[in-house]
């Protein structure tokens, strides 16, 4: 069996796992376990197929005609597909095992089987998206992915917040799909078929239109600003392992679409890369600014995903600019960094979402200002969360640093005198990235400090405990991935280099390799050196303290002997000054008590943070649209037989119009 066939076989097992799970009783643990095992078998097959396909010198493709009048069942696996397939096979499977402890069937008899089914279909559909080589097949897989993500995310449909988040997601994803319909229609017009093959010649205007439609359509899924409106709500309200899959893998399908399409189009216009670079920079800064303002753990993580998508988009923008300006080093470093960041984000973000799930499972709240002191009560979760937070803040020696380092190298490389002033403008991307990095540290220090450190701010937090092993082991695997890619990044280089070569197939061969541009071994050496120093210092301190007296007392609070948990700095106060810097996009809302007289009555202080795009633009816009479209209700009175007659009339009208 060839690599592609093995992968297809593995993919088929993913949705099947959910179907098998449905054959068991709703409260049965066996059903869930069997489904996870089937999913693991499918993923293992898929990963084996990936290895085979990677080592295969000329990877095969499968192309079969089907019953539909358009398109073909055409699939192929190239290095770009392989790169995106990796997270698709790993994260949902880990999520499925995580569900053993997190979403126990006897606690959720109504939604357990449905969740397993939709997660399996989601994983399978995503895998089909990245191997499809035909526009129609891709759209079918895309829609299947969108719908199954909807059903997975709205598992707790009894909750009105969940339903609202689900509706917003459904609307946003279909707006994106509409753009993709238009995009593939243009694609067929320009190339003559739906096949996703490199288009060598295309009029500039047509290529530009296809690029813009792809950017919008795929951008909705990736969460590029201002198309991110669906993302925070959907991620916050979905079960945590679904959030992990959505954030860690599904957003990347948007990135995949942009990478794939730009790889097939001849990139001559430099405004493509410039646009993507600017959109990425804005998404990065605004995403992390929004994240800083959040009180809900999962909303914070969701906004941080937007930030990471922004960073990836900046890398893609740099690579596109490199193609149009003929700079091979920008291509290699920009695309290499962006694709490595795709992997990295699909390691540390699911890790953080799994952790958030463990916290919610233990405390039943997502409000971080009601938590605190969990590091003492959930030490293992605290450690893995700390590793995830360091990794996502792009700090050495973990994986997030390596991909951002590649992007920095690309931006600094743009200073080359040969590129003149445009190059210098591109180089400012490094400053944007640095700002995002500093803000990410603020954001994750806030999250880690408020949730895990200090003393518990509520009874729920003081009764927390470490999660079950079935939840801890998936976290451990992801944590090992973060450390492994951070310390030995050269392991990823062969895949990245092949992917870059595939992406630039239209421009002919280029001489530069990623390993030649970026000294990965030095990063390894420094990382190991840092770890060794920390280890040596820790050991010597331990020896040192053995002979010293260690006295335990309470925290020093300026002589005040009984500090209480309520007196601690909360997450909101921690970031207040940063939130104030960004009031033009974050929109903090305060309702302050009006205190009058010497003995004011009891009152409340409330603070919330709104989203500029969703609360200021999207909601008012849809409200107005809803008002005007309601006049159309005269032709929609709820009588199905009339609707059937409408359809018939329209079909007749279309046929006559077509024959004119």
């Amino acid at each position, binding site marked *: 069996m060839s690599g592609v066939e093995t992968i297809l076989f593995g993919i088929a097992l993913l949705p099947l796992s959910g179907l098998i799970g449905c054959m068991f009783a709703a409260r049965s643990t066996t059903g869930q376990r069997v489904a996870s095992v089937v999913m693991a078998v499918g993923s293992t097959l898929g990963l084996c197929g990936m290895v085979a396909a990677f080592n295969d010198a000329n990877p095969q493709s499968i192309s079969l005609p089907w019953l539909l009048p358009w398109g073909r069942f055409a699939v192929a696996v190239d290095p770009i597909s392989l790169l995106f397939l990796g997270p698709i096979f790993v994260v949902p499977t880990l999520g499925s095992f995580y569900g053993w402890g997190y979403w126990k069937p006897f606690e959720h008899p109504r939604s357990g089987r449905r969740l397993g089914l939709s997660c399996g279909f989601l994983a399978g559909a995503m895998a089909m998206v990245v191997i499809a080589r035909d526009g129609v097949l891709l759209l079918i897989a895309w829609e299947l992915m969108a719908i199954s993500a909807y059903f997975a995310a709205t598992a707790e449909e009894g909750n009105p917040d969940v339903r609202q988040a689900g509706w917003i997601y459904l609307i946003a994803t279909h707006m994106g799909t509409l753009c993709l319909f238009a995009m593939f229609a243009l694609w067929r017009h320009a190339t003559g078929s739906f096949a996703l093959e490199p288009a060598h010649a295309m009029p500039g205007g047509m290529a530009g239109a296809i690029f813009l439609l792809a950017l919008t359509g795929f951008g909705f899924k990736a969460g590029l600003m201002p198309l991110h409106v669906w993302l925070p709500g959907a991620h916050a309200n979905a079960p945590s392992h679904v959030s992990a899959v959505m954030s860690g893998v599904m957003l990347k399908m948007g990135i995949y679409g942009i990478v794939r399409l730009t790889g097939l189009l001849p990139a001559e216009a430099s405004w493509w890369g410039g646009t993507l670079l600017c959109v990425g920079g804005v998404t990065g800064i605004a995403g992390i600014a929004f994240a800083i303002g959040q009180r809900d753990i999962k909303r914070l993580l969701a906004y941080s995903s937007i930030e990471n998508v922004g960073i990836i988009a900046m890398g893609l923008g740099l690579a596109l600019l490199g193609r149009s300006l003929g700079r091979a080093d920008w291509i290699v470093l920009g695309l290499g960094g962006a694709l490595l960041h795709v992997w990295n984000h699909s390691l540390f973000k699911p890790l953080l979402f799994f952790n958030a799930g463990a916290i919610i499972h233990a405390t039943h709240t997502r409000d971080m200002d009601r938590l605190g002191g969990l590091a003492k009560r959930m030490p293992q979760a605290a450690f893995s969360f700390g590793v995830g937070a360091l990794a996502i803040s792009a700090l050495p020696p973990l994986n997030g640093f390596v991909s951002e380092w590649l992007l920095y190298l690309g931006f600094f490389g743009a200073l080359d005198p040969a590129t003149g002033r445009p190059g210098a403008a591109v180089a400012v991307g490094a400053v944007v990235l640095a700002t995002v990095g500093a803000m990410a540290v603020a954001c994750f220090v806030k999250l880690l400090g408020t949730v895990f450190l200090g003393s518990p701010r509520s009874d729920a937090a003081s009764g927390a405990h470490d999660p079950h092993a079935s939840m801890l082991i998936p976290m451990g695997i992801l944590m090992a991935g973060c450390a492994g890619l951070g310390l030995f990044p050269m392991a990823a280089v062969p895949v990245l280099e092949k992917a870059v070569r595939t992406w630039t197939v239209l421009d002919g061969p280029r001489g530069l390799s990623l390993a030649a541009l970026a000294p990965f071994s030095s990063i390894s050496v420094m990382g190991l050196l840092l770890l060794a120093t920390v280890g040596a210092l820790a050991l010597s301190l331990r020896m040192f303290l053995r002979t010293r007296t260690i006295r335990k007392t309470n*925290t020093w609070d300026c002589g005040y002997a009984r500090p209480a948990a309520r007196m601690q700095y909360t997450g909101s106060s921690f970031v207040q000054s940063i939130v104030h810097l960004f009031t033009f996009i974050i929109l903090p809302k305060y309702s302050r008590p009006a205190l009058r007289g010497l003995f004011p009555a009891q009152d409340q202080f409330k603070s919330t943070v709104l989203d500029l795009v969703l609360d200021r633009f999207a909601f008012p816009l849809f409200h107005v649209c809803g008002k005007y479209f309601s006049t159309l209700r005269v032709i929609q009175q709820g009588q199905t037989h009339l609707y059937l007659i409408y359809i018939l009339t329209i079909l007749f009208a279309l046929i006559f119009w077509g024959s004119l």
Partner: protein
Amino acid sequence: MASTTIHVLLLLLMPPLLLGVINKTKAFFGGRVGPPLLQLYYDILKLMRKGIVLSDTTTWIFIAGPIITLAAVVAAGLLVPFGQIQAPITFTGDLILFAYLFGLARFLTTTAALDTGSSFEGMGAAREVTFACFSEPAVFFAFLVLAKVSGSLTLSDMLRASVDASVMGSAPLILIAIGLFVVLLAENCRIPVDDPNTHLELTMIHEVMVLDHSGPLLGVILYTASLKLFVLGAVLLHVLTPSYLSTDWLDWPLFVAGMLGLAVAVGIVESVMARLQMRHVPYLLVFALISCGFGFLLLIR
């Protein structure tokens, strides 16, 4: 090999001396005798002999904070050239690792502060991470200027590049030197951003984050703080004096003299200025950012 040894010895042994020089300078301006030059060495040795008081609220993070911070700053110190001699470790893109090692140090210092659950330490940590949002872009603008001037992406080459001495050639470097000096003062919590001598917790950044650390841990923190001043000072010194006499035997003494001169300059600034109000600190840091940004603009104009 010999130069690596000297580099490491200088890096590990000299930093506390800078604090002594700063304090002597301040004492001179105040008409006092001041503490001995080696006072910080004595303090650290004394702290190392003491026991520890730990808060019940804290976890292992409280102890890991100072240790990892020290390791990160030492690693960063290995990437900076001291004088005309190349740094012990140098590779393309080491400047980014350098900046992010300080990010790692900041992450660990602030989490260790939050581990105590004290609202004072929360305030200090909040200020530290907020001000970094200004100083980090300033530093990267400065790096862009240095990279453009030297045409290299290693700290050792960037900091030892020779520039043309014309007004337009040196103006960007002067601007980033001003910006980096402000960042140096802010990152090391010196006046006018922070007052290392005050004991009013509400107005401080760094001192307030380490209120609960005691004994050997406090010793590690004080040592790390001086190390940080030394490493960032070395970067600034190179920007101020892009090329020395290129005589090998004179190089180390010149570097040491330069660092001591820098310490005197910091001492003078501390003597003639008052600490800014906390809400005015962002203005100063934005000034640093703008200064570095204009330096870059001038260069690419």
